């Protein structure tokens, strides 16, 4: 599904943040990335989503056999790459319901399917609202504007469920959630698991991984993956922190 080889990324015209990263995620697998603050996790997620603020100076990313780096952000989204943002953007004046329908229809059109009218869309969105336990009146508000931290994250999962992407990148979707919301989001994500769908779950905590059990856990530090293991690695990290790994590095 996703094959990252020797990836080097700099802030456009500036410092290098990702320094030779290799990662391979087969279809149907869940991979978790953990790592200290500032290690480059969000940068990796932005690069996957096609943010122009970051420059890939070396290496390759292959997604479903295609050169991902040759596609722009909207093409990537249309071909099934989804990033749940660590900090979802507020867009005043764009109604959430309208936005959701636009993105669903943009995807449908790109796949040669007819657009959904408001009633058809509403049927679809109602189910998904239940999945993430958001009220329908959230559709009337502006995208993410004034949403609580947890509501923003649930709105991300809502979009993910609507678009049914193939590669889901979740950047700290669990942070800022209360215990119930964590369960809701965890179930929501878990419900989307399937043989044709892969997940890259960026998190600081083990708890989301109780709901979305990873096949592999990687530790990102200083722009590189310094250690990989199975789901037990997350438990170990929770107990021991990162220091023992970082020391082993240097």
């Amino acid at each position, binding site marked *: 599904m996703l094959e990252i080889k020797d990836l080097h990324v700099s802030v456009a015209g500036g410092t290098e943040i990702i320094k030779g990263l290799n990662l391979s995620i087969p279809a149907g697998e869940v991979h978790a990335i953990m790592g200290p603050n500032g290690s480059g996790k969000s940068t990796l997620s932005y690069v996957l*989503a*096609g*943010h*122009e603020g970051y420059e890939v100076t070396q290496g390759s990313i292959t997604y479903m056999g295609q050169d991902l780096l040759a596609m*722009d*952000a*909207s093409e*990537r*989204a*249309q071909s099934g790459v989804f*990033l749940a*943002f660590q900090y*979802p*953007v*507020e*867009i*005043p*004046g*764009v109604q959430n*319901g*309208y*936005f959701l329908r*636009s*993105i669903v229809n*943009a*995807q449908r059109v*790109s796949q040669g399917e007819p657009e959904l009218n*408001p*009633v058809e869309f*509403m*049927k679809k969105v*109602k189910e998904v609202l239940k999945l993430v336990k958001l009220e*329908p*009146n959230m*559709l*009337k508000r*502006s995208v993410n504007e004034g949403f609580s931290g947890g509501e923003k994250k649930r709105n991300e999962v809502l*979009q993910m469920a609507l*678009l049914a992407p193939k590669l889901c990148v979740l950047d700290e979707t669990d942070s800022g959630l209360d215990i119930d919301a964590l369960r809701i989001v965890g179930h929501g994500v878990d419900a989307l698991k399937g043989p044709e769908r892969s997940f890259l779950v960026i998190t600081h905590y083990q708890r989301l991984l109780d709901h979305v059990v990873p096949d592999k856990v990687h530790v990102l530090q200083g722009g590189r993956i310094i250690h990989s293991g199975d789901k037990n690695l997350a438990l170990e990290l929770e107990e021991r922190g990162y220091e023992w790994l970082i020391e082993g590095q240097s």
Partner: protein
Amino acid sequence: MSLKDVNWGPLLTPSKPLSTNENGFISSERQELALQRLSQFNMARAEAWRYTSLKRIVQLKLMSDAQQTEPNWQLSFNEEAIKASSASMLLNSKLRIISLSELAKQNRDQLAEQAFVWIEQQFAQDETMHDLHSLHYRDGLVVIVEAGQDAGELCINMKREKSQVSAQSAIANTLQIDSRNIWFYLAEDAALKVIESFETEQGLQNHTQLSLTSMYLSKNSKLDYVRSQEQSRGNEQTSLHLGRVAATVYAEANLSLTSLNLGSDLCRLELDISLEESQARADLSGLYLGSSDVLLDQHLTLKHKAPSCRSSQSFKGALGAKSRGVFTGRVIVSQGAFDTVAEQNNPNLLLSESAKAVTRPQLEIYNDDVECSHGATVGQLDEDALFYLRARGLDEAAALRALTSAFVGEIRETLPKQNLKRALDSSLKQSLGLELELNEAEEWIDWELISANI
């Protein structure tokens, strides 16, 4: 100086103000004088007119009386068309519409007398109006709403079509001027909604719109006023709009004003609002759209003269290509105007690298008990928001559209008529190349309603 002392030429002679071109045009000598005055006037007000030069007007030749023709006037009252010929005097129990020349001549009852005295004072005091009017004076239209009456909605549209312009006007540098002046006089507790609009047919050149709108809001009256201006732009840069709106608002009266400037080569709009007595309120909002190399100059003066008045200003500029937008917002709070709340907001959206926005808040506050807020921004579309939308599969053009729609959406929603929304939409499309994300069928989607029905 009173109205009677001014030699307005045919102004006060009998005329049919809205229908024919028989009367009401000023003589060529008079026009020469007007041009002269106008060029001096430009210099005399160097600061207020810093961004707008009237050179273009002064250099143009005015048409002779014979060449001038009248534009199309459309008036409707509560959705019913008023024929031009009857417009010199329309009376019902709530509202009367009368030409200024008629008002000057007739035996006036008390209310009409009050209105007339006010108009005379305006003529005497308002220099800007005076000067602009000398260029091309047409008889005025006086609208009086009786005390305690909610008169409903009056729509006044002036449209210039290409076929109406006489053959001679095709000669370069000959200027067709359409002008109008309208006076709204609301007696105590009266209410009125007004939609005033200006249009020209596509492709018309060498065309100037002059407009003066004056409002008198007596105690506890309420005026909702929407002004929409749109002119086809010529490659000679000779479509000009010079507009002025002056309002005097008395105790507890309420003025709501919305202005759309959707296109001109040069548009200068002056708003002069005075809150005269306590608890008067003015809510002003506007949108100006700039394309190619047009100049849009909004010049607003708001005076808080009495205690406990409220005002808000929200003017938005969306500027593309090499256009320039200027917003000057002068708020003057007098010594005695305690407990004043005044808000001002002027966000500008630059849609191209060469577009420019100038925003000049000018607050002059002469007492302590004042809550004044102002915010002005000039910027591009939010990059993070653009990326967010694109990361959800909208292509760049769609993402731009969505964000621009959001920027203009707020004011679009307040527009009371579908045709105003359509005018805004088509203007966005034509001048900024942006097709609004919201189309008509969808804009009122009520998600809850749909959700309840499924």
